[in-house]
């Protein structure tokens, strides 16, 4: 047995690699996404069960609060709507928020049950793991949110084809931003034990401050600041303005639009803010996944 402490001669990777590695990354993103969608689709009972919470909010919370406000109608730019109608897009946003973060955090389950290792040792750029997971979570969240559109007649909200078509990209942007946040958290979490903390100290505050349940106008300063720091706010607002647009005279929806420094934000700008946030979160996730001990 001789020990040779000389240097090891190794090969260099072939340079044809670039094109094939882009293709490989795209394939990997696709399959990571596809696996999540396949599992989501297999678990249709869960999809139905997850509608229970939004329904409770809408039917019981919405009706109850509506009644205690004396059937209170919000007046906005020549039209008016009830609290149930006001909260309806907020509940769609809620479904998107929770399923986006939950969906993306399934990465922690993958780690716990070992499957993540199979992905992490594969000869792919680990950005594919983060992007595939974020897109998977976003797709699930969009489906969960858009299913709720079937309840529109029940709450007396009129939807038009253009408003639904416009809703798709905005729902996706919100879903993408929040699932990227979920992947970023999941990339650092080693077990499900931290999940309660994320739920209580991140997801619930994000939901309450997002404007899903009440308008973000006329709030105390400290709360105004917190609501503007909540990324979900920039997704709830466009959802509401689009969903209610067909029920109200044109221009009326700006009356409850979210303001920043006294200006009502255009929904396009809100979408850009969300995309920026999602991009940063995705970047954090990619850095975390690329790290090796």
């Amino acid at each position: 047995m001789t020990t040779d402490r000389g240097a090891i001669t190794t090969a260099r990777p072939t340079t044809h690699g670039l094109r094939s590695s882009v293709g490989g990354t795209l394939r990997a993103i696709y399959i990571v996404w596809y696996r999540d969608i396949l599992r989501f689709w297999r678990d249709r009972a869960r999809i139905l069960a997850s509608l229970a919470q939004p329904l409770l909010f809408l039917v019981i919370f919405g009706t109850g609060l509506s009644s205690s406000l004396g059937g209170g109608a919000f007046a906005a730019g020549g039209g008016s709507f009830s609290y149930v109608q006001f909260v309806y897009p907020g509940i769609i946003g809620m479904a998107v928020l929770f399923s986006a973060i939950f969906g993306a955090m399934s990465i922690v389950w993958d780690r716990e049950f070992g499957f993540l290792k199979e992905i992490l040792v594969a000869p792919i750029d680990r950005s594919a793991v983060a992007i595939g997971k974020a897109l998977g979570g976003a797709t699930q969240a969009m489906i969960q949110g858009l299913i709720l559109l079937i309840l529109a007649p029940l709450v007396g909200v009129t939807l038009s084809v253009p408003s639904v078509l416009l809703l798709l990209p905005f729902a996706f942007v919100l879903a993408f931003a929040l699932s990227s946040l979920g992947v970023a958290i999941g990339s650092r979490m080693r077990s499900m034990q931290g999940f309660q903390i994320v739920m209580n100290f991140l997801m619930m505050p994000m939901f309450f401050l997002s404007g899903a349940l009440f308008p973000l106008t006329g709030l105390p300063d400290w709360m105004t600041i917190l609501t503007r720091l909540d990324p979900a706010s920039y997704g709830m607002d466009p959802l509401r303005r689009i969903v209610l647009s067909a029920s109200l005279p044109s221009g009326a929806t700006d009356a409850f639009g979210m303001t920043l420094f006294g200006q009502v934000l255009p929904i396009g700008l809100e979408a850009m803010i969300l995309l920026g946030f999602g991009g940063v979160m995705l970047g954090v996730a990619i850095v975390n996944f690329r790290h090796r001990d």
Partner: protein
Amino acid sequence: MTDGDRARESVIEARGLTKRFGELEAVKGIDLDVRRGEIFGFLGPNGAGKSTTINILCTLMRPTAGSASVAGFDVDRHPSEVRARIGLVFQDPSLDAQLTARENLEFHAFVYSVPAAERASRIGEVLEMVELTDRANSMVMTFSGGMKRRLEIARGMLHTPEVLFLDEPTIGLDPQTRRHIWGYLRGLRDTAGVTLFMTTHYMDEAEECDRIAIIDGGRIVALGTPSELKALVGGDVVTIATADNVIAAAEIQQLFQVEPLVDDGSLRVEVPDAAGFIPRLVRETTVEVRSVSFHRPSLDDVFLKLTGHAIRDEGAGANDMMRMFGRAWGGRR
């Protein structure tokens, strides 16, 4: 041997491979050459540094010092090139239980860039190899432990790797299933010519390997074929129980110039010829000899001789706890 020869011969090379976790030095400068097409066993107790070494060779961890190459590529500088050329069977299960066997393999084929035209046929082949063809479309959650392990071996082979790493591939399986798995592994080496690098703490499995490295406390203490290693033990191993082991030990040392080892309330002596030794022992010691047995040296004896302690699982409980704890709270991977 010239450098060129060695590059062709060795599929895994390590020089001074070291891994520290804070204060703890888990791997302390390992040198290793694994030849193409051999079954190489990495034998040692839990916590000896086996899994850390395998994790470095598989590019899951980075070495603190030293270097290693697998299939011709440096594990630290070109991890993707290494990953494309190795297959892995982990100690802990890593299948998606909510997908079917075939879907698990399809996922693998995608992330390992198996060409679309070959995907279906390769999946068919590896399922055939581990005799799971008829269960291809069953959910993995319905599989037994042995079936899951077979599927993981099939998956590890799907992209025709040069080296298949197996970290304790038969841990927790019953003896019959273990033999079965070994049948597949030998078949792989013989038909596909793949190099197998495995860790184990089962001595009987280590015997199946072409060559073994014994690792203890982060160091390789011996390396060779099972028979070479057994030759390190001088002849036969005699186990003696007496009325007074202390007196007996002193007498044996005086009479035979060998130093007995006290192990589990009995004495162990290595002698060239047990058949001649035992009658003399019984005749010439003054204390009562209660039992004597002898056997040809096993790897257990090698391990005990080299490390001064037996390769047992006493620490397993605590180690497994640490492993779980590490998974739950450990640093980033």
